[in-house]
């Protein structure tokens, strides 16, 4: 081996090392921002850092995490879903009415709504429509259906669902276990299986994937169906916590879910998403938006603006660090 080749070899490995470090940093970023928010909360209100505190602060983050995963699947395919919030609301209304009173019909409706999501994926692919337009339209459809199912707030969650969401495991609060489970299951499915690679590839380089003989129609349908599935899970989890439904209950989730994906290290294009990051991003947003704000004792006139500022700071931190990668 000559000295020159050793030199180039070293250079390549150090470059690879820098890239790996940047990638590691990017992977750790969602965890870091979550840790920061938790430290701030611990400092402001030590009482919150306890089994009881975490159960209370994080249980509403579970439906957000599920909605974020749903949005992540859509974003993985270079699309955006503006209807996930109202869809979660619709699922919530079905859960609090049909699923309790007539479980078979309830299950059929929920499966049917996942089917509608799959069809939307097909429609967007076949007609080459912008997903923003299609899903914005669908958001009104879901909202309208939700009001039809439940014209005024009410209904009641099925008992088994209440039991699941009120589950108190020893030592570790339920929301943390649930978040871990969601993150790991989706991580394995999307990042560690071969079809998961194809799904991400459909966002990364659809042309190459198409030429290699994979059906882009099928990947889009699968991505949207998965989004529908996790939207259903999100709506059910939400109703399990709130115990009863409201047609407007999920409206805020659309933007929270998008922010969660981005905060979790995802990109709007290129099929670059991270399931574990998305779950951490959702938890961070849920904690930053509400507990942190409540514990800070900001005058009421400024609270709304402060909420937005916290979100911008958290998201800006992510942009600053991920820029170092380039």
């Amino acid at each position, binding site marked *: 081996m000559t000295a020159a080749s050793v030199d180039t070899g070293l250079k390549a490995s150090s470059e690879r090392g820098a890239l790996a470090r940047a990638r590691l940093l990017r992977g750790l970023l969602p965890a870091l921002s979550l840790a920061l928010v938790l430290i701030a909360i611990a400092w402001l209100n030590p*009482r919150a850092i306890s089994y009881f505190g975490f159960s209370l602060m994080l249980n509403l983050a579970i439906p957000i995490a599920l909605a974020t995963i749903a949005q992540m699947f859509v974003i993985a395919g270079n699309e955006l879903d503006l209807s996930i919030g109202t869809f979660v609301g619709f699922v919530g209304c079905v859960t609090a009415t049909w699923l309790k009173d007539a479980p078979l019909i309830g299950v059929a409706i929920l499966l049917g709504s996942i089917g509608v999501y799959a069809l939307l994926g097909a429609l967007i692919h076949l007609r080459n429509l912008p997903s923003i337009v299609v899903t914005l339209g669908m958001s009104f459809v879901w909202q309208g259906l939700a009001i039809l199912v*439940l014209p005024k707030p009410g209904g009641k969650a099925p008992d088994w669902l209440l039991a699941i969401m009120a589950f108190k495991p020893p030592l570790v609060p339920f929301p943390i276990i649930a978040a871990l489970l969601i993150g790991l299951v989706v991580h394995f499915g999307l990042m560690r299986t071969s079809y998961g690679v194809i799904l991400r590839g459909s966002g990364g380089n659809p042309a190459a994937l198409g030429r290699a003989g994979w059906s882009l129609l099928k990947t889009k349908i699968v991505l949207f169906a998965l989004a529908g599935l996790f939207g259903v899970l999100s709506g059910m989890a939400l109703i399990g916590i709130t*115990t009863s439904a409201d047609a407007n209950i999920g409206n805020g989730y659309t933007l929270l879910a998008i922010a969660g994906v981005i905060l979790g290290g995802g990109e709007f294009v290129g099929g670059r998403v991270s399931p574990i990051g998305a779950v951490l991003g959702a938890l961070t947003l849920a904690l930053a938006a509400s507990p942190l704000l*409540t514990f800070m004792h900001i005058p009421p006139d400024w609270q709304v603006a402060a909420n937005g500022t916290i979100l911008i700071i958290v998201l800006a931190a992510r942009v600053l660090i991920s820029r170092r990668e380039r």
Partner: protein
Amino acid sequence: MKKLIVLSALAAMLASGTALADTSGKKIAFSNNYAGNSWRQAMLDSYGIVTKKAVANKVVGAADIFTTADKEVPTQAAQVQNLILQGYDAIVINAASPDALNGAIKQACDAGITVVSFDGTVTEPCAYRVVVDFKDMGKQEVEQMAKFQPKGGNLLEIRGLAGTSIDDAIHAGILEGVAAHPEFKIVGSVTGDWDQTTAQKAVATILPSLPDVVGIVDQGGDGYGAAQAFAAAGKPRPTIIMGNRQDELQWWKEQKDKDGYKTWSASIAPGVSSLAFWVAQQVLDGRKDIPHDLLVPYLAFTQDDFEAELPKIVKGGVASHEYTQEDAIAAIKANIK
């Protein structure tokens, strides 16, 4: 052993304590889900005025206000949970949903916290509800309309925010009123979201397709917008029920000065927030006989007394009334049957 000490301390407390506890160390939080219209602003102002005085006079230890950034139910549920963690003794709440917050409300009750809801009340049995009789208000609108339009005719209904209990109750009252007065017929219904601009747009859109209407039954915050829509379309001005807003009463006064225009105005007084505060204080004071459902009257103005109220309302505001501790005690008494 430890348990024994705690128990004996508790027993000693119970033995020495009188019926009325001291509330000067108690902390009351206000959970509010929306601050973006004149009514809500007046609600927060009334609450602020009354509670600042109460804190200064050492009636309660603290009375903090928390407003969520959006109107969403999950955000407010999370807020209630955080208030539990903060260690408040009572939560006064204007809830985003009557049912969907029950999970969080129950957690608060289980943690020993008194919950008093008003305006947007909650159905969880452990909470207190300061309820304005919205259904009666809707019914009364039609009753009043019958006085101004004895011959009857077509009515246009303006609804509030879809999917809320308030909209539902007022609407039910209006339907009941129309059933009792068959000379009236509702020929159209639009959604005004309790907002003048939204109402104006909605009314302007439906107006060309409507037969002549003699009156408008609405929910407050939408009367002035409806009047503007009729004026812009060059249609004859119907009898519009008002909702205590400054711009509505101002318009009413202008019309009255011009040709003796007659109508009626009613809405829930935003100051009912201060009544809810005093109810919470009374519960913390150790009163055990307070009914969980407290019915309080709405605030109405007639042809004779609205002009006296008008100068008192700030521009863009809504007529209000700040309640005192005595008012709350009287309201509780009136509800104990």
